[in-house]
């Protein structure tokens, strides 16, 4: 604990952040949600998927995702 304030700050800048498990869980859920609204071709959501597909059609194309 004899290091200078500057060294302490530099160490702080390099410190690790612990990423909690919920962050990865939310990431997976969010990616799956994006898949459902953008990429699902009726496999999972059936007719609701078609409605979502048509509504988000522009976003799907413009974000570069394959579409019919």
């Amino acid at each position, binding site marked *: 604990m004899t290091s*200078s304030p*500057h060294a302490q*700050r*530099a160490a*702080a*800048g*390099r*410190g*690790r*952040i*612990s*990423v*909690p498990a919920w*962050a*990865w869980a*939310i*990431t997976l859920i*969010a*990616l799956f*949600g*994006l898949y459902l*609204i*953008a*990429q699902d*071709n009726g496999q999972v959501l059936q007719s609701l998927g*078609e*409605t979502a597909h*048509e*509504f*988000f*059609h*522009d*976003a*799907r*194309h*413009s*974000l*570069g*995702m*394959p*579409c*019919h």
Partner: protein
Amino acid sequence: MTAVLDRPDTERVPRFGQLFGRIVLAGVIAGALAGAFSLLVTGRAIAPALELEEARAAAEGAGHEHGEELFTRSEQMFGGFLGTVLAGVVLAVLFAAVYGAVRHRLPGRTDFARVMLLAAVGFGVLALLPALKIPANPPAVGDPATVDTRTAIYGGTLLCGVVGVMLVAALVSWLRSRGTGIPTTAVAATLAIGVLLAMVLVFVPDNPDTIAADVPAAVVWDFRLASLGQLAVLWAGIGLAGGWLLDRFTRRPAAS
């Protein structure tokens, strides 16, 4: 110890929750900006393709698959905006988790520099790479029969990009740990990126669709540029807004 060299860059490490909130807010901002781009630019680039679809349907006789539109054009434009905002939030959630995990390994003296670097990597891997391998197409181009194949190519390209970034990062870490200088490391990393990119372009299968003769090249080109522009706005927004918000926070000395 010279004062100039020791000027404080980052004063504290954010807790993940503090990082998460700021990056997700940046995702909302970036999504709204890219959504505005969608309304102003990409939506207009899509319009000629939709006219083409209608002309085809009229030529074949009304009443087949798209006989009844579920949404009006303006509703679809709004869907384009909303979908882009949602994509911004989803990518920001992913960005926050990855940034939290790799922040201590990223070069750069400030959180702004590090967030910008990771956003540039995100754009390169999740936008530019698929744009090179399987470029975006407007409506009226894709063959419904090949959509699963094209989705697999798209997903596989993204996966290759993520693995490629990890390989390059591992190479850089290894070289730096051996004491290799920054110029040599940069050259080696650039060569590695070039080789990996070439491998993806050569070995991942190409889009099986041919673009129908009645689709003007300008319609496809304008749309692809607009699509890439929209993704550039999205990633620039996450980098700039996220970097700015986080940097303001971590530069302040921790209270107490």
